[in-house]
């Protein structure tokens, strides 16, 4: 998009003096590449191809065209005036990732990674999914490029997200229900890794979040950073200044890092990540590793994890399947350690209240994931004045959640 008054907004590759790239794949003490030896070569290949393509104008132009014509970017930045009035706190602006093709920010990453898969000559794509949004976004790009697609999904999630399961099947993907472990997202990731280790020659694994072994946290971040780049220049255009705070939900953390990253050097902008507090941190029934976890190694990277004293990864709970993950992207762990971002929690109930509030005030059904970010704004509205600006990443739409919300209301559809 055009903007004349901000020279940094389109600076996608660098210019951040805090840090530019992970060093050897590490973000401070976090990140790295902790995988079986069989995958090391594929990760090396992916890394060097990506380093080449991120500087390749042809690739960047192809990506930009896909984002514009297929995904529908740029997504609007919307001033939620009624919501702002009702909460009588800051002016609330919503970055409308829910309006993307397939209904969430996930497609920004899958479009980019599909182009990588194509360049690598892979004929098959695999993905893991929790809520199903990343699975749908992967199945979508696979259909478009004529690639075979298999999506791993915890058996538990297959049940609670049946609509997205059928969507993936309509798009031609094979959905595999994973019955091992806790039967949720982390086990789907394990199973996808097992597939990849077996079929590494002809298969590209599209990890859906900013976790996993290097280079995934970096490349998924770069593909999602379009959210923050747009938001930054939209804000400057509409308001002539930067927002006072950015708020995004954090499961693995891809929508949050995508929004935060282009603002990292704008020290006056607060970065707030909101984890799933589930039934409350004190109950242990939550998915908030940054708030209540400790550092460990899972799924190829070192990061904050929910684990017991023996290092066994704990089951998580959240009303939102997309946040139901015991780890978090290593860059978030780093931003927490250096104090650049703050990480809060809201409970299931608070997220549900925020969901309903946005329905009635703005005519928008947010995803239950994104409702966590809204709930933090609702809880914190008093701490802002009316001339302050809070920008919330509305990372996805709530259509996929309608059945489960109806169920909570005791209604059978």
């Amino acid at each position: 998009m055009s903007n004349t008054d901000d020279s940094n907004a389109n600076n996608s590759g660098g210019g951040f003096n805090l840090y530019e790239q992970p060093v050897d794949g590490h973000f401070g003490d976090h990140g790295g590449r902790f995988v079986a030896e069989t995958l090391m070569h594929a990760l090396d290949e992916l890394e060097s191809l990506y380093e080449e393509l991120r500087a390749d104008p042809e690739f960047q132009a192809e990506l930009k065209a896909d984002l514009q014509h297929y995904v529908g970017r740029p997504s609007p930045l919307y001033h939620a005036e009624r919501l702002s009035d009702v909460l009588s706190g800051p002016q609330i602006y919503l970055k409308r990732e829910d309006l993307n093709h397939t209904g969430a920010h996930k497609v920004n990453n899958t479009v980019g990674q599909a182009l990588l898969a194509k360049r690598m000559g892979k004929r098959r794509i695999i993905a893991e999914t929790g809520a199903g949004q990343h699975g749908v976004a992967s199945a979508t790009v696979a259909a478009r490029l004529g690639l075979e697609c298999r999506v791993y999904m915890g058996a538990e999630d297959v049940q609670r997200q049946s609509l997205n399961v059928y969507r993936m099947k309509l798009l031609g993907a094979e959905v595999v229900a994973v019955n091992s472990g806790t039967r949720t997202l982390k086990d789907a990731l394990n199973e996808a890794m097992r597939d990849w280790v077996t079929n590494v020659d002809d298969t590209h694994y599209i990890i859906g979040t900013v976790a996993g072994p290097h280079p995934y946290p970096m490349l998924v971040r770069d593909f999602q950073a379009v959210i923050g780049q747009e938001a930054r220049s939209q804000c400057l255009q509409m308001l002539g200044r930067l927002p006072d705070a950015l708020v995004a939900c954090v499961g693995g953390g891809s929508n949050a890092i995508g929004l935060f990253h282009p603002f990292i050097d704008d020290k006056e902008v607060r970065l707030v990540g909101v984890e799933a507090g589930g039934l409350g941190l004190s109950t242990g029934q939550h998915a908030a590793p940054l708030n209540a976890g400790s550092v460990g190694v899972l799924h190829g990277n070192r990061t904050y994890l929910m684990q017991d004293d023996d290092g066994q990864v704990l089951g998580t709970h959240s009303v939102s399947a997309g946040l139901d993950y015991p780890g978090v992207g290593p860059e978030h762990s780093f931003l927490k350690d250096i104090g650049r971002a703050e990480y809060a929690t809201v409970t299931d109930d608070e997220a549900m209240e925020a969901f309903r509030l946005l329905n009635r005030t703005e005519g928008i059904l947010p995803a239950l994931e994104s409702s966590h970010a809204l709930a933090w704004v609702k809880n914190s509205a008093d701490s802002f004045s009316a001339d302050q600006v809070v920008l919330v990443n509305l990372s996805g739409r709530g259509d996929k959640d309608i059945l489960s919300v109806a169920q909570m209301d005791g209604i059978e559809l």
Partner: protein
Amino acid sequence: MSRLQQRFAALKQADRKALVTFVTAGDPASHATVPALRALVEGGADVLEVGIPFSDPEAEGPSIQRSSERGLANGIGLVDVLAMVAEFRQHDGSTPVVLMGYLNSVLAMGPETFADLAAEAGVDGLIMVNLPPEESAEIRDLLEARGIDLVLLVAPTTTSERARMIAGAARGFVYYVSLKGITGAAGLDVSSVEEKVGALKTVSALPVMVGFGIKDPESARAVAQHADGVVVGSALVDTMERSAERPDNIPGLLTDQLRAIRAALDD
């Protein structure tokens, strides 16, 4: 000389292939492991790998995944695994014991504490499935200072430069993963193993053990022709699973199963 070195030296002198076995600690019952290890030695095992149960065993096939889940269901943590090794050591001072598992188990205990306790229990080696050589120096040095070898893995996808680097960083032996896939998978290609292990042996001063997909006397014999030894895991774990309801039968079954493989190797 470490127990692993002694064992490999003796095997070389006798011109015999090494038979390495894997079972998961606490599977199918917490008291089943030490008798199983003794039975494996009786059946001809030269090196014993003991799996540390982990919640997310991402490189394992269904057999070892389930064994890990059974171990966890029986409440077996890393401390208990070390206690089992110590118990085994009371009656067997010579058979090397190598722990195998995932890095988070060792990190949670603390690498230095682990190294101390493992040395005390009589552990000889450690294999961490998800710890590549690039990330391994700290743990390797802590272990080495206590006489424990950090075994590293080489895969069919490992480039020749990497194989050289890994062979240089490994201690004890090099574990060659015989196929692209998970433990217990089908699709073992002996001619590919021959080629890769042959190349590996030109850069490795250490013995090369080959594992993943070796399940019976025939596959053991075929692979052992090209390596210093073979690892049998899922096939033993399957035997234990089938007898989970009658754990007293397990030692006898394991001994018989292993004797057949031993005979094929010595043939």
